[in-house]
């Protein structure tokens, strides 16, 4: 029997893990529920902190998975485990035997309408970070009509017990600043504001991006969470927030409000995850064995995790985890 490795998820983590596993002489099979590989990152236009085109990262990844079995529009319906390994029944009726399973199921973007006070889906000019990214890619969004004042709200669906997510989504801060700069590039005369609680510039070059955002792009960062959005007679948005540094509430009218939606656990995999015996952690993401040496392992032997299925992560972190999971799987197969 071939040493099949079942990789669930064809995003950055899945593709990179598959590439590396193939190099190590194993036979990865990618199961992707959508009709294309690439995951969320393929929907992104440019990456922080240096405005690197996302396609320059995705294209080589797609190139390197050529020759690997990829099943698109496919999900795992049922999975069983025995001494030989795993037997997965797919939605297309096929059955796959695998020695190990890599869960690279990624994340779901927080549904912005759940944060009702921001009026996403109710007010015309409230959009999400993903929709803005699409605008950058295609140049088309009927809600973006030469806005004069643009606001970004950080931590939408993160660090918020009211929506049940108490964790930090890690990448939204830097994304917000990146998108704020890009908006200034597209609309140089617009005033751009970001409403943050903390600016978590955790990576190399991120703080430089923050400096550039302030100094070169003249983006105004206001510390305070937008608490309420309404629409005025002209259809413009009236937002309320507290400027917590100034110690006073503030009110302003905006033409566009971008919600920096957090990452949430991809729940479409819940059933399979349960069958595999992989629990969730307190943030609702998958529980890995531990966050240091066992970050790719799970409570179940032969079931591995990589990427944002365990926690919000940046793309470099995801790629690093995908590479490390390949080594983990390789060692697992060889020591069996």
């Amino acid at each position, binding site marked *: 029997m071939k040493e099949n490795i079942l990789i669930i998820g064809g995003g950055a983590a899945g593709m990179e893990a598959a590439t590396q596993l193939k190099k190590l002489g194993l036979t990865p099979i990618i199961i992707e529920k959508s009709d294309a590989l690439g995951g969320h990152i393929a929907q992104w236009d440019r990456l922080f902190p240096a405005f690197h085109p996302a396609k320059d990262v995705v294209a080589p990844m797609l190139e390197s998975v050529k020759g690997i079995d990829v099943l698109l529009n496919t999900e795992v319906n049922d999975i069983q485990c025995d001494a030989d390994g795993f037997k997965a029944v797919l939605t297309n009726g096929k059955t796959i035997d695998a020695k190990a399973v890599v869960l690279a199921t990624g994340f779901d973007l927080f549904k912005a*309408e759940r944060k*009702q*006070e921001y*009026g*996403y*889906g*109710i*007010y*015309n000019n409230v959009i999400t970070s993903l929709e803005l990214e699409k605008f950058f890619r295609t140049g088309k969004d009927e809600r973006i009509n030469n806005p004069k004042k643009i606001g970004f709200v950080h931590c939408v669906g993160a660090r918020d017990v009211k929506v049940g997510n108490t964790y930090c989504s890690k990448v939204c801060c830097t994304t917000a600043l990146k998108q704020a700069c890009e908006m200034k590039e597209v609309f140089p005369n617009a005033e751009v504001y970001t409403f943050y609680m903390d600016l978590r510039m955790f990576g190399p070059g991120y703080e430089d991006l923050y400096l550039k955002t302030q100094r070169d792009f003249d983006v105004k960062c206001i510390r305070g969470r937008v608490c*309420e959005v*309404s*629409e*005025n*007679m002209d*259809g413009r948005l*009236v937002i309320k927030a507290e400027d917590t540094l100034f110690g006073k509430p503030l009110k302003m009218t905006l033409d566009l409000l971008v919600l920096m939606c957090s990452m949430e656990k991809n729940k479409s995999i819940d059933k399979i995850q349960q069958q595999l015996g992989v629990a969730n952690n307190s943030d609702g993401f998958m529980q890995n064995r531990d966050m240091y040496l066992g970050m790719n392992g799970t409570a179940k032997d032969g079931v591995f995790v990589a990427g944002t299925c365990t926690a919000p992560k940046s793309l470099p972190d995801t790629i690093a985890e995908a590479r490390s999971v390949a080594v983990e799987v390789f060692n697992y197969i060889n020591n069996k």
Partner: protein
Amino acid sequence: MIIEGKQKIWADYQKDIPDDHYFYVRSCIRQAFWPGSEVTFLDITRNKLGKDFYENPYHTTCGGIAYHSDTIPQETAMTIIARQFALMKESGYENYVCSCITSFGCYTETLETWHEYPELEAKIRQYLWDSCKKEFAKPKYLAHASDLIYKFRFDIAKQMKFPLVNVKTGKPLKCVEHIGCHYSKMFPSKGFGGAEYPHVLVGMIEAWGGEVIDYPERRHCCGFGFRQYFVQANRGYSESNTYKKFESMEPYEPDLIITNCPGCPYFLDRWQYVIAEQTGKTYGKNGYGIPALTYEEVAGLVMGYDPWDLGLQMHQVAIEPLLEKMGIPYDPKKKYQGVNGKDLGQPMCPSCIKSV
């Protein structure tokens, strides 16, 4: 504004309450300020719609005002509430409906607290027994009176004589809806439509032919705030909240305001007079104010009740322009006549806002 987005939320926030057999409790403020409203509610539900709404003469205040003014501890307020529930049990009812939003908030808060801390419920049970020798049962369903009018809005629409339409222009009246803060801001799931986009009054306006206005300060409190009003020196804060709302709704030129809280219609009504006196500004057309009505008053108007039977003369802001817009006949001479045709005497006329 994307109405479908709101409709999605409204669909999510529907609560399950029966439409009959309620134990009805009154509101301290409403029976004093808007006596016609509660009478109208009982008349509509009992006589126009044929429902069973029982009112026990021994029921009291819920203690909410004292509780929110920090003059009694929560246990005391809960014991008062427990006594109300005991009366309901004694009267053989399981469904509880209150006329007051503050009460609704207190009842909801009490039930939720007991749910989280059963030992507190046991303690209150003991307190009630010690003080009144009564035993209570928690209501099976708790509703606010506006929930029931919301539920009956289409039945009322069937009996409607004067829809919320301007008879001269044929256009729907522009209605501002103002929800009492304690209706759903504390427990969004306890109100029709949730906390951000409540549907309870919007549903009535839509059913009765009006046009809903969603203005930027829609969610803002009327300014009552208990402590802010009860201390005279603080009343400026209270008034300023109302002022903020009127400044925000003014460009929409609303014809009327519908409220579901005891304090809100009072403050939205009376502060218009004070603002006019202090700043010279009025928000209605031609020196009039914008009438702020209770939902029962609006229901009564559309169903053809006599405006003076509804107690609309109790409003500071003149109601006559609205009656004329809706084409409702009224006898100006009867405005200040009591039930027996007795002259009640005319109030003094304010200098800045038209009262007739």
